[in-house]
């Protein structure tokens, strides 16, 4: 028996250098990254975008390149912003 083994023999289990703590820490980090993508995932967004555009297109011509859809995710809320630029002529006619 080596001296180190003798030393280990009298060490309490609390001081063991197990890898479980590292496992827990790694899991917590990766899940914090993955959860926003896998839980409550906004896979309805493409469909929502298409339907909103179809509704608007029924009334006014819109340029696909003048559309911006953004989602901002924060700890306690998410913000969905849809911005559609309408041609000037359309608006003045409506008013």
């Amino acid at each position, binding site marked *: 028996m080596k001296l180190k083994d003798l030393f280990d023999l009298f060490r309490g289990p609390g001081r063991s250098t197990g890898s479980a703590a590292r496992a827990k820490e790694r899991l917590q980090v990766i899940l914090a990254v993955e959860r926003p993508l896998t*839980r409550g995932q906004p896979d309805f967004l493409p469909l929502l975008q298409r339907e909103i555009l179809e509704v608007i297109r029924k009334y006014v011509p819109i340029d696909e390149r003048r559309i911006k859809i953004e989602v901002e995710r924060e700890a306690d809320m998410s913000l969905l912003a849809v911005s559609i630029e309408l041609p000037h002529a359309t608006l003045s006619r409506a008013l």
Partner: protein
Amino acid sequence: MSQVIVVTSGKGGVGKTTSAAAIGAGLALKGKKTCVIDFDVGLRNLDLVMGVERRVVFDFINVINDGIRLHQALIKDKRIEGLYILPTSQTRDKDALTREGVERVIEELKQDFDYVICDSPAGIEKGAFMALYFADEAIVVTNPEVSSVRDADRILGILNSKSRRAERGEPPMKQHLLLTRYDLERVARGEMLKLEDVVEILAIPVLGVIPEDDAVLQCSNNGMPVVLEPKSIAAQAYMDAVRRLLGETVELRFTTPPKKSFVNWLLRRSA
């Protein structure tokens, strides 16, 4: 009222089928008429683990697609009163599972059984999806190991978003954690995630902790649910889980290593 429970995990090899067999058998031992369905189409194993592999004539897929009646495919366990097995097909693939077909079989089983246990395949594809879609409750089987916990977390997300209850906006599925292959010695040495760590990460209530036990392998070798070896610690832990499932309050056992003699301790430390 009849309850449909899915036994699922995401990751393979964590003990889904063993647990579905043990919990199904345990419910039947408690006087609840129970049917366990194998959803792992093409890789059937529930029949083997429950020791009825030589009695399979028709299966779940035949009932869905080939006009075979449910009672022709159900296998009655000869050891436990009120326990039935619905095996799956070994030759077809998961595309043979249709949502309408699965729904029809589950609805018919609910007429006659107290509990319908759906043994899910690993993964998150069609078989696993079908197994969880109609469930009222989920037992998420996890080992104290990183990949298994990560996959369990993924499955929890799917249960909350892709089940029929979620789609219909009904009250969410009740979810239970079943931690299996829990090695008490390695947990004590800090080498394995402990129950508290897994609970903190997954944040669902604990149904049971099944300690690592040789009896599990021996029972599967012999084709019997482990609860039929009632002296084993795994059987006792599974029966505790069954009682919790039935609403009883049962304190957790087998989560710390048994006390050993000083000589044992000394031998173990110097090993």
